[in-house]
């Protein structure tokens, strides 16, 4: 699915990520951990082409992201649902329209029933008409997940999706992601919530990647 070949990245100073080689195979479930500032968000941005590697290459189904036309990049992003760390909504549109945004932007028909089912699934049905700035952090993260899956993408990338959630809500969100994985979606979650990882490992064969000293390693089973 997504493949990193000897990838390095630097924001201009020293290298933040070095010599990263990795394959996310279809239907896999990965966690990405590492201390704050290790480069987890950066890694995810490399996955969907918001950033391009300073060395090596990132491919989606053997196509180099850097070589894609701008329209192909747009097309590619419709197949990768992303829960951004800072959520990224259009603050002037109600929640339900924000969740439907990938569909409307792609010119695809929007079924109101499906949309409200999706909002119920993340427990936000009653807030459908609210504007994003009026929502709590946890509500925004759940809305971001709803938007990430609305196009039924093949890959879901989530950047600290439980950062603002209490444990109960975190588990619920994890359950949603596990369900999606069982439907065949490829999942990658950046988090440093070890409890979340343990809980996931009891439900799916999840693998844990760890960024330390600029390199990506498969974390030990001590988690």
């Amino acid at each position, binding site marked *: 699915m997504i493949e990193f070949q000897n990838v390095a990245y630097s924001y201009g100073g020293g290298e933040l990520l070095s010599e990263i080689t990795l394959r996310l195979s279809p239907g896999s479930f990965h966690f990405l951990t590492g201390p704050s500032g290790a480069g987890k968000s950066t890694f995810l941005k490399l996955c969907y082409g918001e950033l391009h590697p300073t060395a090596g290459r990132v491919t989606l189904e053997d196509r180099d992201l850097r070589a894609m036309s701008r329209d192909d990049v747009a097309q590619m992003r*419709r197949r990768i649902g992303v829960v951004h760390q800072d959520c990224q909504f259009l603050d002037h549109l109600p929640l339900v329209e924000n969740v439907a945004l990938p569909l409307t*932007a792609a010119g695809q028909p929007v079924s109101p029933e499906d949309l409200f089912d999706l909002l119920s699934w993340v427990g936000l049905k009653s807030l459908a008409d609210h504007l994003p700035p009026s929502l709590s952090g946890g509500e925004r993260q759940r809305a971001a997940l709803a938007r990430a899956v609305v196009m039924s993408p093949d890959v879901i990338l989530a950047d600290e999706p439980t950062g603002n959630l209490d444990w109960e809500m975190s588990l619920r969100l994890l359950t949603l992601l596990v369900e999606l994985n069982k439907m065949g979606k490829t999942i990658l979650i950046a988090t440093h919530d070890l409890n979340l990882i343990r809980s996931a490992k009891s439900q799916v064969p999840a693998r844990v990647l760890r960024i330390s000293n600029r390199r990506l390693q498969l974390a030990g089973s001590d988690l």
Partner: protein
Amino acid sequence: MTPLIAALRDLLAGDHNADRVVPPTGFTARLTSFTAGAMAFLAVFALALSLASGRLANRWSSALAQRATIRISAPADQMAAQTAHVLDILKTTPGVASATALTDAEQRKLLEPWFGPNLPLDTLPVPRLIDIHETATGFDADGLKNRLAAEAPGAVLDDHTRWRRPLVAAADRLRFLGLISILLIGGATGAMITLAANAALAANAQVIRVLRLIGARDAYIARAFVRRFTLRALAGAAVGTVLGMLAMLLLPAADDAGGFLTGLGFQGVSWIIPLFIPPLAGVVSFAATRAAAFHTLRRLT
């Protein structure tokens, strides 16, 4: 070409959802309407100026009729010789198409209104007149005067219609300046709309970023901005054009003796010409906003 045609079709068809993804651009959008309106108003006047000075130049240059007269005063016994000599000089003067001496009968006819039909022309020292037709380029009047003074002292070049020649040139220049003004107005409109569009794009950088991240194509994102600014410019220019044309209509009625100022306006079918201003403003706005939007988008991965 086809993406452009598709963009134009989208522009006309409209897309409620695509319009909504960009929040109302209130102030910049109103600024665009106002700018387009004011520019259209000015363009109407520049156009009227250009058309009126064009008409004036045509009228004056045909009134010039490219004619001049030479008057020869000489003692009766030298008159025939001097006339023949002046005609010879004129034959070799560049810019003179033809020159004919008026006959006694023709001269008598010219004087008749003042002196009656029984004028004894041969006993009076009436000067002989030579009628000159110029070529389109005309002759060098000062050169001819000098030559006549040296070779035929009794001959005087009367080029009283020549004062109009610089006026015709001025009218031509005025028409040209009017056209330049229209081009400048068009350019300034494009520049101002580009600035307004850039301000709107900068104010909505976050919206554009989000749209790009969720897989919206550049054309989709640009469309919301392009449509908004083009329609605003179109509406503003329509209002400005109508007001400008009303102002022209309300100018005091022109009669031919009124001269240039009252002749400033549109006549007959030329009333159609200012109607092209709003669509042109729309096209200028479309191109300017589209270029600005794609320029901004290309900086985003």
